[in-house]
């Protein structure tokens, strides 16, 4: 029989026992809905976690430090041991330029974080300051912030972390447009004590210490508060402690504030050339991180990326998805028994009809295909209904979660998602499972002896 005729006869047969077949199809729909709801929860959580981590800007970032860096007494890490033969280099401007020239590298910028005392409303608030590159404007790290990003890479402006802003004022949003004073320890090379140190060090992460020493003098910088961000960009990774105040990277460089690596450079005698505590390397895509990371290691530096963490995260969600699939499939397994039962009942009821079909020229394959088609139609309709139902359940979960979160004064989230691939996969899965359920009834119907079937009353 042609496919069109098969489908037409299958739908007609299903319509004849509309109540029973609808209930069976509803069973399939509930099974698929349970599967979709479970998986949409897993997918939604994964997307939520990925979004949060991706907005931190960590996935396409490699953090580079010199091997001189504060390993003081700690055993060498695996990657360091593996590269033990590579000569140790200073993380200076030439190294930065060399890394910038590597393929697939978008930008390389120094990590500048330093201790400061913020003065606001004549009260002191000690905290850490971090320099932010202009690329942070578009990489999602500051998405959802109050106010706006820095007006220019050299603007004397600051963005505050929400908790810190709450320390300054119970109404954080009222801080926007106000000024604060940044008191910090400015580093002045002993050989260049005269003149404006900011000019001397402009365009460089740290100035030369000349004969190997420098003095530290307190300095102040007035900054305008332009934004307040909920979470710390880059999760505080790569620095020394969590930063609560963010300023343009160029401004941070010109401040020439004393950093931890200054003391290290003095101690290990490498202070004759300027060096960076660490560099952040932005790669075009997370998939290119391993190659770039390997190239940097070959240059003699220590690197760290969150790739392994990502792999573990994926593994975790794969296991979660697998468990959710198993639990979600239980309902679908029960539904398949319903299909088997319905089709076996149909064989009993339509035994004489099967005999007539055979007498009129149907062969075993036609009968088998007809019952398969009926199972497939139940799977298709049940699959579509189930995906719709599962999607509605997911929307319900999201709605309920967001009502709860809004009562806790937390921003809304989406923890359930039904992407197109999940919807299509669920429908195809429902059809395949239904066809599998129709296997036994279809072959039983096909094997019916036409003479006996025609005698059946």
């Amino acid at each position, binding site marked *: 029989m*042609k496919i069109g005729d098969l489908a037409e006869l299958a739908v*007609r047969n299903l319509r004849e026992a509309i109540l029973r077949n609808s209930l069976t199809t509803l069973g399939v729909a509930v099974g698929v809905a349970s599967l979709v709801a479970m998986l949409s929860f897993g997918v939604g959580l994964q997307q939520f976690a990925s979004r949060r981590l991706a907005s931190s800007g960590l996935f396409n970032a490699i953090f580079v430090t010199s091997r001189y860096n504060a390993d003081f007494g700690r055993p060498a890490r695996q990657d360091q041991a593996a590269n033990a033969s590579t000569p140790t280099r200073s993380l200076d401007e030439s190294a930065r330029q060399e890394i910038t020239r590597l393929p697939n590298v978008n930008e390389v910028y120094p990590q500048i974080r330093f201790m400061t005392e913020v003065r606001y409303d004549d009260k002191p608030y000690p905290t850490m300051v971090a320099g932010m590159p202009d690329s942070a404007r578009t990489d999602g790290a500051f998405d959802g912030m109050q106010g706006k990003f820095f007006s220019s890479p050299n603007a004397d402006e600051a963005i505050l972390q929400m908790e810190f802003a709450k320390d300054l004022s119970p109404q954080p949003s009222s801080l926007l447009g106000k000024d604060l004073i940044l008191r910090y320890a400015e580093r002045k090379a002993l050989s260049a004590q005269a003149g404006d140190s900011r000019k001397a060090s402009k365009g460089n992460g740290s100035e030369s210490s000349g004969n190997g020493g420098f003095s530290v003098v307190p300095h102040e910088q007035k900054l305008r508060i332009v934004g307040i961000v909920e979470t710390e960009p880059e999760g505080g990774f790569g620095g020394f402690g969590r930063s609560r105040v963010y300023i343009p990277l160029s401004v941070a460089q010109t401040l020439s504030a004393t950093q931890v690596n200054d003391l290290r450079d003095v101690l290990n005698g490498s202070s004759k050339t300027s060096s960076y505590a660490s560099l952040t390397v932005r790669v075009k895509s997370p998939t290119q991180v391993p190659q770039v990371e390997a190239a940097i290691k070959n240059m003699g530096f220590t690197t760290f990326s969150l790739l392994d963490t990502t792999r573990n995260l994926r593994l975790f969600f794969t296991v979660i998805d697998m468990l959710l699939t198993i639990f979600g499939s239980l309902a679908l397994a029960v539904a398949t028994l319903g299909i088997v039962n319905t089709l076996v009942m149909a064989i009993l009821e339509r035994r004489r009809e099967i005999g007539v079909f055979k007498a*009129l*020229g*149907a*062969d075993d394959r036609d009968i088998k295909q007809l019952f398969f088609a009926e199972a497939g139609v139940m799977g298709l309709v049940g699959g579509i209904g189930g995906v719709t139902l599962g999607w509605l359940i997911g929307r319900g979960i999201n709605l309920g979660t967001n009502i709860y979160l809004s009562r806790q004064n937390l921003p809304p989230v989406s923890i359930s998602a039904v992407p197109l691939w999940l919807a299509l996969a669920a429908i195809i899965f429902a059809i395949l499972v239904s066809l599998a359920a129709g296997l036994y009834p279809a072959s039983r119907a096909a094997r019916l002896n036409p003479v006996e079937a025609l005698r059946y009353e």
Partner: protein
Amino acid sequence: MPQDDNGIAIRAGNVSRHYQMGAAIIRAVDDVSLSVGTGEFLALLGSSGSGKSTLLNLLAGLDRPTAGAIVVRGRNLAEMDTHELARYRSLTVGMVFQAFNLLPRMTLEENVELPLRLAEVDRADRAARVRQALELVRLEKRLSHRPSELSGGEQQRAALARALVNRPTILLADEPTGNLDSATGEEIMLLLKNFNQSLSMTIVMVTHERPLAERFAHRIATVADGKLISVTPKPREEVQS
């Protein structure tokens, strides 16, 4: 297409159909040899349980003989696989039954169209062929009626249309008047006679009514206890027109 075997449409040679029922063997058809000529109207006459319907089912390819051969158009049905037998039932023979066996959920049009679907006839040709078949039995105005809305005679006529729609050369009828009153049965027999004469269709009809067989069939093959007892030849010109 294989030609008829010297004017023989069906040649059954030493055909047996035995069933095992526990230790006993039921010889439903036992060593029957019979030939049916092309365009012949043969009546298989016998009492209930004589094996005539079993023999008809064997000729229809619905059942396989335990022994012997049934050759139709040069092919032995016993040697055909299930797919070939299905093609044979679809295109070479048409069947009508005592109980009509129309599908109650389908309209008359859909019932008659069913063999065309099974034979994978193009959808575009089907409507015309269904109408033609129903015109032959004068039911062309009842296309959209369901079997339950028809009388017994009309249902059997519809079953005849369904049997003819694929234009078979052989019509096998199992007690076609068994469920009908005598007037309606007469009407059906006249239709069969008409198909036999106007379409040169070979007809094998199972019946237990001797007068009916004597009036319409060219020959009467009498079956008892699974055996062919006699074949009564009757000149064609004597058959009532």
